[in-house]
């Protein structure tokens, strides 16, 4: 097809502007944003939600998820919210989001019941798994991982986003879809106090410009991506999280002076199906969705599971119980290689297997498991987990895969079927993000954050619980203030910044892909596995030159392209936040996966702290915050949430 054959199918509204006013503004319509909007609407406030995609299927959980973690208050749970939240904090050496984890553990199950009331499926209502060891016959809830303590629930997550979307409409939330938020509006009063005033954005189909004025704003735009990993051909597969989420919430927050922490934490990449790994959950393994699949080696010899003391487990059932003397174990999204205290059953370590003569490749062999376990992994979990219903379950079934007859290959030496280089990094496993207080408020009044946009964020239950909580607190604040003034110069400047690439001639222009490639190469070179001041500074220098010399040459031919171009401008900002954060930490750290050749000492006591970073007058400013700044989790939570506990929390006998 040539250019003349296909015309842009949507209205051309570039240069048009609409002003929207609401009490509460939510940016991002994933799980956390939807729940923030619902909380505010339930309080009777007017709410606007801005989503780049279409809420029905957008975000990390757009097509589903299968595990609901830390449902500590469900009627079958053998653990308390305090126990699990504190375990996470200890497991992550205090580089953990204690506040958000506690909110998740304390309120998460309430949100799951909300989802059920909106029409989501959270229990085995069709009695497909009657009699299974993981199913509670009274509540029909189904559990994963630790069958003794029952605090991770298997859910039909593919029903959740459509249910949330219906609920937003029912509550009268004003929905702006296909609209990217691009910048925050802040205003300062005569005393110099800064507060949030709303945001600006652009429709990615028409190019229409929006000004959203609000009394409080909730950031729910997930976390950065494509900073080290970029593939101009298979861009949508570069990262684990959706293509749409590249950290624009971080970038606009940085520009507005918001504080961040742990941005120096990055891990060697684990997922990028554009190259070194496979479609998530699509290769043989025994983690997460596939826990605790039976694994065999190339000869078909079964690989033993062991408990934390190295005792070989004889039955499949034993893989789901704590070791003798252990109260509970932790497994899930961010739990990688847990401390002895929390370590659950696991297959024997790779090195030991090779020593004992096990042969590659390994396979997941579900045929050797009891039928209920096989059916729940292949058909329920693979089916409800994000990106599995069609990409894995249906595709593999169409190719003839039958889990009672076939075994699925695992690639490489680990279970991730991934093989990344040290400099190929990713924001994964509770990375850095927005710093906040007990109200999930940022350092700027009237601006709140939730879900994956928070530092050390985690999973779906975390997103739903913190979303609702942030929405609640943002509403309380909105009730006490009027709309803040906005500065028309800020608005005009943003408009110019947004549209500029449309005016660059294609022959002279640089595409977003070319810039993204250059950024990720720069970050691999200057901010890879091992860091040092001189390289980090060199990296900053190069990125600054991109900002000055390359950004003005970025070219876009339509609003879709413009959205991608804005994304890469934001990636450029995020990359600089990472460099500043890395420069600020003058030692190495295990929990932060942060290695320095010039400061090799690992986790010296004087550096065990948050180095909180923000931008002021174009310069990075830091302050230090103790790792246990959140105090006693239960006490501090109860101090601030009596009304919720009385009126909204679900209480069980």
């Amino acid at each position: 097809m040539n250019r003349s054959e296909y015309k842009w199918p949507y209205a051309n509204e570039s240069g048009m502007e609409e002003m929207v006013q609401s009490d509460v503004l939510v940016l991002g319509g994933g799980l956390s944003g939807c729940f923030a909007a619902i909380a505010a609407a339930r309080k009777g406030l007017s709410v606007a939600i801005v989503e780049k995609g279409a809420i029905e299927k957008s975000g990390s959980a757009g097509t589903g998820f299968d595990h609901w973690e830390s449902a500590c208050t469900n009627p079958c749970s053998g653990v308390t919210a305090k126990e699990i939240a504190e375990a996470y904090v200890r497991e992550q050496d205090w580089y953990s989001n204690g506040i958000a984890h506690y909110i998740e553990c304390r309120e998460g199950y309430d949100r799951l019941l909300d989802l059920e009331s909106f029409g989501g499926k959270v229990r085995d209502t069709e009695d497909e798994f009657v009699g299974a060891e993981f199913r509670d016959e009274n509540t029909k809830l189904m559990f994963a991982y630790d069958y003794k303590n029952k605090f991770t629930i298997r859910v039909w997550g593919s029903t959740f986003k459509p249910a949330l979307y219906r609920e937003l409409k029912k509550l009268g939330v004003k929905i702006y879809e296909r609209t990217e938020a691009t910048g925050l509006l802040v205003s300062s009063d005569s005393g110099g106090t800064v507060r949030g005033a709303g945001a600006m954005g652009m429709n990615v189909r028409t190019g229409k410009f929006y000004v959203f004025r609000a009394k409080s704003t909730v950031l729910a735009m997930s976390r950065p991506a494509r900073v080290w990993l970029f593939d101009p051909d298979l861009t949508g597969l570069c990262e684990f999280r959706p293509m749409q989420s590249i950290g624009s919430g971080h970038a606009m927050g940085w520009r507005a002076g918001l504080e961040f922490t742990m941005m120096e934490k990055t891990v060697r990449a684990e997922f990028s199906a554009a190259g070194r790994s496979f479609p998530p959950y699509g290769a043989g393994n025994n983690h997460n969705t596939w826990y605790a699949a039976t694994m065999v080696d190339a000869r078909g010899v079964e690989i033993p599971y062991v408990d934390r003391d190295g005792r070989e487990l004889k039955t499949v059932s034993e893989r789901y119980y704590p070791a003798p003397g252990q109260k509970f174990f932790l497994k899930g999204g961010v739990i990688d290689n847990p401390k002895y205290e929390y370590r659950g059953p696991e297959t024997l370590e790779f090195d030991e297997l090779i020593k004992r003569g096990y042969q590659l490749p390994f396979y997941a062999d579900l045929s050797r498991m009891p039928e209920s376990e096989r059916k729940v992994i292949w058909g329920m979990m693979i089916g409800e987990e994000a990106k599995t219903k069609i990409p894995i379950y249906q595709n593999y079934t169409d190719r003839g895969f039958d889990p009672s007859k076939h075994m699925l290959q695992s690639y490489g030496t680990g279970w991730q079927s991934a093989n990344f280089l040290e400099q190929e990094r990713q924001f994964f496993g509770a990375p850095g993000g927005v710093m906040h207080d007990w109200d999930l408020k940022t350092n700027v009044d009237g601006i709140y954050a939730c879900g994956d946009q928070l530092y050390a964020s985690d999973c779906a239950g975390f997103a739903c619980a913190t979303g609702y909580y942030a929405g609640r607190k943002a509403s309380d604040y909105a009730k006490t203030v009027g709309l803040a003034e906005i500065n028309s110069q800020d608005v005009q400047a943003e408009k110019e910044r947004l549209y500029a690439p449309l005016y660059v001639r294609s022959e002279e222009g640089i595409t977003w892909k070319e810039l993204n490639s250059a950024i990720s190469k720069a970050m691999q070179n200057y901010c890879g596995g091992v860091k040092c001041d001189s390289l980090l500074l060199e990296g900053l220098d190069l990125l600054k030159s991109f900002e000055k010399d390359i950004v003005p040459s970025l070219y876009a031919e339509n609003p879709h392209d413009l959205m991608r171009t804005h994304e890469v401008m934001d990636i450029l900002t995020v990359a600089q936040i990472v460099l500043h954060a890395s420069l600020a930490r003058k030692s190495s750290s295990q929990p932060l996966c942060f290695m320095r050749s010039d400061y090799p000492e690992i986790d010296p006591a004087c550096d065990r702290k948050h180095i909180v970073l923000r931008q002021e007058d174009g310069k990075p400013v830091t302050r230090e915050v103790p790792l246990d700044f959140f105090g006693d989790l239960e006490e501090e939570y109860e101090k601030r949430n009596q009304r919720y506990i009385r009126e909204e929390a679900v209480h069980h006998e």
Partner: protein
Amino acid sequence: MSNQKKVDSKEAFNLEYTVSPVASSVNPIIYNQELCIGCNRCAQVCQCDILFPSKEKGRHPIVMYPGECYYCGACVMVCPNPGAITLKHPLMNRAKFVPVK
């Protein structure tokens, strides 16, 4: 940034958007026109917005930006006519399975 160009809203309004399918090494989405009724539900939900409605009523959408596909399957999930739209992994991502031993 000082070097941004000034946007005159009248000038902006006269800008013409252009678009044409961007080549990629893969074809993630395959339509079957025999089964597709051209309802555009798939284009409506794609969070990456890579599917564009056809100009002709009743015809399947166009995969405008195949390289931006996240391979989530949302488009297939909402399609009212099974088989009208298929998701296909890049060849390198097709994991192998064999009969159990």
